[in-house]
């Protein structure tokens, strides 16, 4: 009698699920470590030269780190329009980040997200020669 082969869905058959799992794991790690910045690096490091190249990429993409203040002085305030659900999400996430004696306001968290978004945008567009419309 012919053996009926039962195909089990492979976890590799849907590439999106693997990417989603990686993103979810990245967010879980960010929360577990108390990180306020998460950045996917392009450099794949292997050995001393690779990790130095990775360090160069990190420093090129961050405003400053280590021995200097990590974010620019937040010296001006501007009104930025948001949908009610966006503000609710900011508040929820800032509360989650504010456990265990650390505190971050929704506004501070929003400022960090804006900074991170700008850095990634500038990094991706720095090679383009056309001036940006203002």
């Amino acid at each position, binding site marked *: 009698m012919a053996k009926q082969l039962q195909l089990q869905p492979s976890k590799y058959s849907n590439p999106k699920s693997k990417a989603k799992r990686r993103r979810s794991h990245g967010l879980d790690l960010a929360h577990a470590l108390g990180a306020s910045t998460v950045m996917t690096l392009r450099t794949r490091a292997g050995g001393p030269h690779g990790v130095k190249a990775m360090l160069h990429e990190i420093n090129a993409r961050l405003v400053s780190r280590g*021995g200097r203040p990590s974010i620019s002085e937040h010296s001006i305030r501007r009104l930025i329009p948001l949908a009610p659900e966006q503000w609710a999400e900011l508040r929820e996430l800032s509360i989650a980040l504010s456990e265990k004696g650390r505190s971050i306001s929704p506004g501070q968290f929003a400022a960090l997200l804006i900074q991170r978004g700008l850095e990634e945008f500038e990094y991706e567009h720095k090679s383009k020669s056309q001036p940006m419309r203002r």
Partner: protein
Amino acid sequence: MPSTRKSASARNWLGATTPQGTIQIVFYVPSKDRFEKDIPHEKWVKETLETFGRLFRGATAFPRAQGVWRDDAHGGKLVHENPTIVECYVDRKALNKGKKELRRFLHRLGRETNQGEIGIVIDSKYFGITIFDHE
């Protein structure tokens, strides 16, 4: 062939018995505080190696790198720094098990050496910690 099958067969012909560490962790031990004052760098390199060795079975510190960063937030000032880079490979179970202690260590380093940001790369993702837990 999925990568787990390939690595399982390599483990067999190598006769390897310990867990596979495929997640790379890279940590840059800072050499200065946020006001560019020197910190006890060798002490923290030693602590990093001990922590990673305890949590992840081993780590390697490369000789200090010479680095210079242009601080655009402060008028393009050039800042010289000599970080030590510590690298290790870990399997996912060990990483999940060691998350809490890793967090305690990173936040303590950031707090005690007065850092603006502590950065660690795990599996090609950079995690920047700017707000440190209280003791």
